[in-house]
C-alpha cells in the first residue's frame, strides 16, 4: 500500500491548474468576479455557491475541480474521508465586513448571513455538505503555506487509520486575493500504477503549490 496524491487543483487570480493542466485566467476587477468566472468555467450547478463568502467559494471551487474525473468519491465512503485545510488569514476578509457593520452605532446592522462565515472552518462545512462527507475535520492557521504541517497532518491521520482518504490543502482569500491548493490523498494498493499519482510528502505538496 502506498499513500499518494491522486489529484489536485491550484487557483490564484491568474491561473487555474488542474492536475498539471494550466489555464491562464483573464484579470478581473474583483476576486469575487474571478470566482464567479471560474464557477461558470467549471460548469458547476450549485445555487448555494452564490451565498457563500469568498473563502468558501474558493475552497468549494478548488475542491470541485480536484474531484472532477478523479474517481475519488467512488473509491471512498463519505464517512471515511477527512477534510483538513489551512490558510493564513482565517476568515479575516469576512471578519472585516462584519466589523464594518457594527462600527457605527447609528448604522448598526450585523448580518447573520455574514457572521456565519466569520469562522474559517465553515469552508470545510460547505465542502462536506456538497458531498455528504462526514469524516474528520480540522482547520489550521499558519503564517504562510506550510507543506510540512500538511504532510504531517495527512500522514498522521492516514497512518492512525482514522480515515481512508483526505481532501486537504490551503485556501486563503483576503482582499480579493485568491490563493488555493486542494489535493486528494489516498492509500492505494501498489498494484494500481498511475504515472499521475505523486507520493505524499512535504516536497510534493510544496511543488504543487508553485
Amino acid at each position: 500500500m502506498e499513500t499518494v496524491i491522486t489529484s489536485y487543483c491550484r487557483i490564484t487570480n491568474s491561473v487555474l491548474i488542474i492536475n498539471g493542466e494550466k489555464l491562464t485566467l483573464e484579470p478581473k476587477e474583483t476576486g469575487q468576479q474571478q470566482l464567479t468566472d471560474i464557477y461558470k468555467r467549471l460548469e458547476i450547478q450549485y445555487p448555494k455557491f452564490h451565498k457563500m463568502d469568498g473563502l468558501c467559494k474558493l475552497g468549494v471551487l478548488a475542491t470541485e475541480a480536484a474531484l472532477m474525473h478523479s474517481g475519488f468519491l467512488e473509491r471512498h465512503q463519505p464517512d471515511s474521508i477527512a477534510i483538513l485545510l489551512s490558510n493564513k488569514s482565517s476568515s479575516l476578509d469576512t471578519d472585516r465586513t462584519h466589523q464594518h457593520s457594527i462600527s457605527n452605532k447609528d448604522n448598526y446592522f450585523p448580518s447573520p448571513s455574514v457572521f456565519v462565515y466569520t469562522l474559517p472552518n465553515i469552508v470545510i462545512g460547505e465542502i462536506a455538505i456538497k458531498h455528504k462527507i462526514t469524516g474528520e475535520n480540522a482547520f489550521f492557521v499558519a503564517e504562510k503555506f506550510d507543506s510540512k504541517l500538511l504532510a504531517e497532518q495527512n500522514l498522521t491521520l492516514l497512518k492512525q487509520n482514522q480515515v481512508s482518504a483526505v481532501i486537504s490543502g490551503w485556501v486563503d482569500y483576503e482582499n480579493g486575493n485568491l490563493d488555493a491548493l486542494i489535493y486528494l490523498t489516498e492509500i492505494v494498493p501498489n498494484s494500481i500504477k498511475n504515472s499521475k499519482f505523486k507520493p505524499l510528502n512535504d516536497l510534493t505538496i510544496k511543488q504543487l503549490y508553485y
Partner: protein
Amino acid sequence: MDALIEKLKEQIIEQLNLAEVKPEDINPDASLFGDGLGLDSIDALELIVLLEKHYAIKIQNPADGKKIFESVRTMAEFIKSQGKA
C-alpha cells in the same frame, strides 16, 4: 402594493445574495422557504435584518417571522400594516 412587491424582490435578492435569481423569477405568492425560493434558517434571520434596515421595523419575537415571511406578498402586507410603506 405592486411597487412595494417589486422593490422587496430586489431587496431580497440583494440581501440574500441570490445571484442566479431575477425579480421576475419570484412569484409574489410562492413560498419563500421550502419548495419555493428554498431559503433557510439564516435567510429568515437575514429577512428580519432587511425589515429593520430598510423599513425600520423591529421584529421582537422571531417566531412571528413565520407568518410574515410566508411569501413576498405577506411581507409587503405586513410592511403596509405597520404604516411603513
